[in-house]
């Protein structure tokens, strides 16, 4: 966390508590540093995100996947919360969401410097074709609430077949590496595609501050 304890305490001193149902984010933040504050305000007692019981997962594993953003720590479960045509949105157990269109990451929410939107149809087409080039356009949010747009040119190549650990099982899949460059940023995404052409696991770039998102099918 970038916050210092000093900043937190300063913020607490500016806050208060009330009957309003709207939570006071200052107390939630402070509770991370000072457990007693959580005990008083109930910030610690928030129920775990619903819908992540092991029974839920085993009953319908295709509605769950395993996700990891390194800055947030270990991999956690993510639940499918919305399907619109070829677009799927997953809500991670630790609170962020990620939206994929044809398995290509097009948006995140709740990760600070989020990927607001992306146009990246060419990447999926190139993977299906066994490699090629594509153009991506990414929107992210800046620190003045402005949208910053970046255009990338990408090369997608097949990197051979390898065994990929999906967390609870290992499958054999073809790895595709996508290298993208803009005039200021470069990143490399990886996709592992099974024999049926499904992307079983991927490591995809979000933004410079948020890093990469790993997602694997269960």
């Amino acid at each position, binding site marked *: 966390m*970038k*916050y210092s304890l000093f*900043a937190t305490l300063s*913020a607490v*001193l*500016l*806050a*208060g*508590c*009330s*009957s*309003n*149902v*709207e939570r*006071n*984010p*200052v107390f939630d*933040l402070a509770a991370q540093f000072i457990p007693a504050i959580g005990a008083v305000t109930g910030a610690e007692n928030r129920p775990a995100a619903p819908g992540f019981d092991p029974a839920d997962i085993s009953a319908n594993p295709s509605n769950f996947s395993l996700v990891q953003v390194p*800055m947030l720590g270990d991999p956690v479960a993510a639940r499918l*919360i*919305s399907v*619109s045509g070829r*677009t799927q*949105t997953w*809500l991670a157990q630790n*609170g962020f*969401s990620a*939206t994929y*269109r044809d398995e290509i990451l097009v948006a995140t*929410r*709740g*990760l*600070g*410097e*989020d990927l*607001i*939107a*992306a*146009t990246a149809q060419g990447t999926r087409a190139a993977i299906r074709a066994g490699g090629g080039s594509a153009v991506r*356009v*990414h*929107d*992210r*949010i800046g*620190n*003045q*609430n*402005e949208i910053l*747009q970046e255009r990338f040119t990408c090369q997608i190549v097949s990197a051979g077949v390898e065994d990929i650990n999906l967390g609870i099982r290992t499958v054999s899949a073809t790895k595709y590496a996508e290298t993208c*460059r803009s*005039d*200021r*940023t*470069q*990143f490399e995404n990886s996709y592992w595609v099974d024999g049926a052409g499904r992307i079983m696991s991927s490591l995809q*770039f979000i933004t*410079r*501050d948020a*890093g*990469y998102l790993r997602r694997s099918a269960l």
Partner: protein
Amino acid sequence: MASRFKSRASGVSLIAICVASFATAQDQGVTYTFFGTPGLLEMPTAVAPAEGEVAATIGIFGPYQRNSFTYQVTDRLSATFRYGSTDDYSLPGFNPPRNGNVYFDRSFDLRYKITDQDGWRPSVSVGLQDFLGTGQYGGEYVVATRTIGDAFRVTAGLGWGRLASAGGFDNPLGVISSSFEDRPGLDFGLGGEVEANQFFRGDAALFGGVEWSVADDWVLKAEYSSDANAREEQLGSIDVASPLNFGATWTPRPGVQLSAAYLYGSEIGLSGTIAFNPNNRPVDGGFDSPPVPVMVRQGDAAAALSWDRAADPQDDLRAQLRRGLSREGISLEAFEFSDRAARVRYSNNRYSTEAQAMGRVARVMTDVLPPSMETFTLEPMSRGIPISAATIQRRDLEQFELQAGGTQAMQDRIALNDAGSNQGLTVVPDEDPFFWGISPFFGVTLFDGDNPVRANYGVRLSASYELASNLVVSGSIRKSLRRNLSVGAISPSPLPPVRREGGRYAVEGDGGIQDLSLAYFGRPGEDLYSRVSVGLLEPAFGGVSTELLYNPVNTSWAVGGELNYVMQRDFDLWGFQDYDVVTGHVSLYYDFDNGFHSRVDVGRYLAGDWGATFTLDREFDNGWRLGGYFTLTDVSAEEFGEGSFDKGIRLSVPLDYIVSTPTRRRYNNTLSSLSRDGGARLRVSGRLYEEVRDGHANDLDDGWGRFWR
């Protein structure tokens, strides 16, 4: 090789690789003087930090302690407010101080960077030091600085006033006019007035110095000072043995500078600076919880022309919409559904920008409402009245949510108008109209004539009850836990004591009712907003306050009028004193749309004086506001007392900037000159412009990047 005079910017990229570096417009590696201004040790340089940078500096040596705030208002203009103390000091012309006397003084500087370094041409700046006070540090300068290679910086300047008190020679401006040759004596009177007849007059002197950045985090400095510290030396509080000063500045982490120096051949000095820039949010975008995704209608659903009321009864839709909005921290206030359209009024209790709340409301509507409803009209409310109406096509939400460029596309397609009438709306009653809260309070008076900090802090209990969403009774009491207020610290004036007894209210009224009033907000006509407040409006005054504002949603300006009749309350907050007054203003608000907001209030103030208040704020799109104001009335400087007229610095920090989770709370403070009686305004809550502007075009535009957030 990159310049060592580099900005130690924060921000760590976890994995991604940045392949290019960027030239920046501002100077790199700016360090601050003992006066808290960009420069060497005592002498200024011509460099300027990035626009928006705020630097707080404490500089201590010999008899001096200087506490300074410097704010880079634009790329070229910067302003400094300084509160300093000098041991064993009195102003020239006054009797020598008694032993141990500490002289406290406030001062303001302005500096302007005329040219940037270009090729061999140096940067050049011009500055006024302590131009608006009692003039202890009063001086002017023109200075040129050139950064050479990656680690050296050379500065030479010409000073006047205090900056020509050592090594002075005939003023070269005497060529233009002989009036520049002599500097008139300082008539500081009560302070606080511009001493323009002194500017750039009298002897001039050269100063200069060099800086050497020996490592990324170390700068060594040497300078020749043209400040003789004449009065201080005369009074024996400093021994000036040499005009040469030597020092070093260490930057252990971005935004922190520590300096040590050997000054005037006799003194060791230490200074520390904390600098930050509101432009740089700790976490871009913040850690807001994810929104409900747009539910895209599939197949033929989008073609439906009518709402199946049997399948989706209105009561069910209302309950689902209310629940969905409640999860987003938004209250459903009223709605109107038809086959092809839905209109929703709501209050945003969570997000700092109405644009973000609008995006969340629109998404919940796609999730809940039947597919035939194609046109959504969103009417944000404030204080129970609608402040605008944004009309959105549902198919646009479905198309642009995940598309690069979709944020701008939505803005281009939304129609923003004044809110519609109440006709056709079904009002959703508030389930819990009673509100209470406990919070700490802080009353801090900084930099008065005798004591740098007077503080009063404790606990505030507040409560309110909504008779209707736009008719609210509210009140608060507060209890001090600790204070060092001084009753009667501010000297009297011929004016009625409308503000200078603030300390007595805090002391004698401790535990009493701070405010208890009934407020009604209304929409009397198109683009018109109204307010009536009755009761104990603030600790010092009670009565009636009325206000009318004309503010079309798509304009950069607004005009308003306020008329109040108030009586002064007793110090124990139980009854009223004999003093009553009719006070009010006509106000003009203008948003320059380049980050600067201005306001002029003309009218009658609490002491019965007539005049005008001028306010200019720099507002960052992320919510920070930093600005200043001054009030000129028909009260003379003599009647006003110390400071001559009311003026101050305003600061407002959005709390979501600090905690990085969404909240509408703000931290507001005003650093003003002493609370005196001239130019004093009634402190009534709910003034209309601040209540309605969030939902209007300019403010929506500033926060529009958060629509899909």
